């Protein structure tokens, strides 16, 4: 077992920031372990949620922010629902993810890429464009066959669209994202998450035509943008 000398690596600023950003008192956790007992993802975590709580209490910033667990939390709220001390543990996990992003960490790259692709789609279209999300995700991960097998099941149902739905106020949504990037830059985030790091990295859906073409070929669909 690895022994950590918490006196050497205690980061008091980290503890204060987590408490401020989450609105939770970390010392309310008395390590009963109920959050871990109910966590559906605990088998996949490198550090269990109750251990994340303990490491956060003791200011072990790097260990916490580099963990895979932060990216495998689905925000199912089991931990929050079951904490006997009414700590909103899921909110702390969220806040730790925010901090990890700002520090340039992404314990599970594919999860982060998926979330980023989702938000890129919303930023460009105002609403989620599912095929655009998939094309974006594939272009960043190369995982082309990820759900190709579903095409023949889903396409005949008329659920999949190869163009984003039109909404008038999409510029208002784009502006929310732009202002968020400006505010984040002002706050001095060390490294901004890719989806907000530069506008040029974000492509409108029609620039994904090669990926969309490829997708539509697998899905045997001819209605291309």
């Amino acid at each position, binding site marked *: 077992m690895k022994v950590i000398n918490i006196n050497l690596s205690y980061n008091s600023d980290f503890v204060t920031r987590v408490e401020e950003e989450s609105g939770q008192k970390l010392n309310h956790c008395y390590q009963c372990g109920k959050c871990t007992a109910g966590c559906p993802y605990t088998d996949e975590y490198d550090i269990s949620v109750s251990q994340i709580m303990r490491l956060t209490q003791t200011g072990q910033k790097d260990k916490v922010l580099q963990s895979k667990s932060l990216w495998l939390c689905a925000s199912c709220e089991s931990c929050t629902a079951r904490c006997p001390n009414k700590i909103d543990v899921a909110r702390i996990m969220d806040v730790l993810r925010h901090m990890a992003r700002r520090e340039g960490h992404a314990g599970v790259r594919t999860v982060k890429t998926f979330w980023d692709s989702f938000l890129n789609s919303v930023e460009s279209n105002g*609403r989620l464009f599912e095929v655009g999300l998939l094309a974006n995700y594939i272009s960043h991960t190369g995982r082309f066959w990820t759900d190709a097998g579903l095409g023949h099941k889903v396409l005949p149902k008329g659920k999949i669209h190869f163009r984003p739905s039109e909404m008038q106020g999409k510029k208002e949504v784009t502006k929310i994202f732009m202002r968020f990037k400006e*505010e984040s830059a002002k706050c001095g985030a060390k490294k901004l998450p890719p989806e907000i790091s530069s506008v040029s990295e974000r492509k409108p859906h029609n620039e994904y035509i090669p990926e969309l073409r490829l997708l539509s070929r697998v899905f045997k669909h001819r209605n291309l943008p």
Partner: protein
Amino acid sequence: MNTSLNYAYYPGCSSTGTSLEYDMSSRAVCGALDITLTDVPDWSCCGSTPAHTVDHTLSSALSARNLDQVASMGLDSCITPCPSCLANLKTAKHRMEEVGFRDKVNNLLDKPANTQVGAKSVLQILVEDYGVANIKKKVVKPLTGLAVGAYYGCILNRPAELMQFDNREHPMAMDNIMEALGATVVPFPLKVECCGASFGIPRKDLVMRLSGKLLDTAKSIGAMALVTACPLCQMNLDMRQTQINNANSSSHKIPIFYFTQLMGLALGLTEKELGMDKLCVSPRSVLDALTSVENPKEKAA
């Protein structure tokens, strides 16, 4: 019902795509119960899970734009079929009660956020405003002989202080509706366990394991079908059921309905109106079994 029920309706992104049948059946059921829905004009995405994993002000600003659209209708609340949209809309309103947070959200918006607009789920208004007893009165085709389990998923009722509806560990709203429709409700022990959520694309193995457990359990308790109230739960269990079978060497063919689809059937709506043909796992055997139970009754009448 003496008083007419009118709501602003926020469909959410999945309603235009992967959960088309949830939207269709929610609208059809409300229509059949004389509940008037008016779409929130030019609604945008709430940001769902990805937005709140990036930043809480970003997430709330995306919701706030929609709450403001509701306010522009002269209303102070809206309803949505999707639990993820619901959680984001409610969280935004709740957090914006704190002035410091609201100021940060306002920095991202064209105009200051409206802080009065609330949100409820379609399920909540059907149970609380319309009432299960009144639903029962409207049943024309009871779901006799259908053994069904109700699966709620994680966030419809949690966190309890925020969602303010039903029970966080043992919700009963859909169980009670199904019972009122004449179905045989099989208590589903994993009703609030996670299905794998949005990890279907980046970590499919997680969905295969978690949703697989739900399907195995449904089979073991003798449920012919499950009902859900969440587009993501339904998609994982229905669209991915073949993938789950392949990954786990199982052979499930369990239809996964939106609760509104089964409500619609019992209220006498057609399969087409309820989008039954949109389901990936064919509900044919279950629907045919229902019809064959109904027929002798009709003949007797």
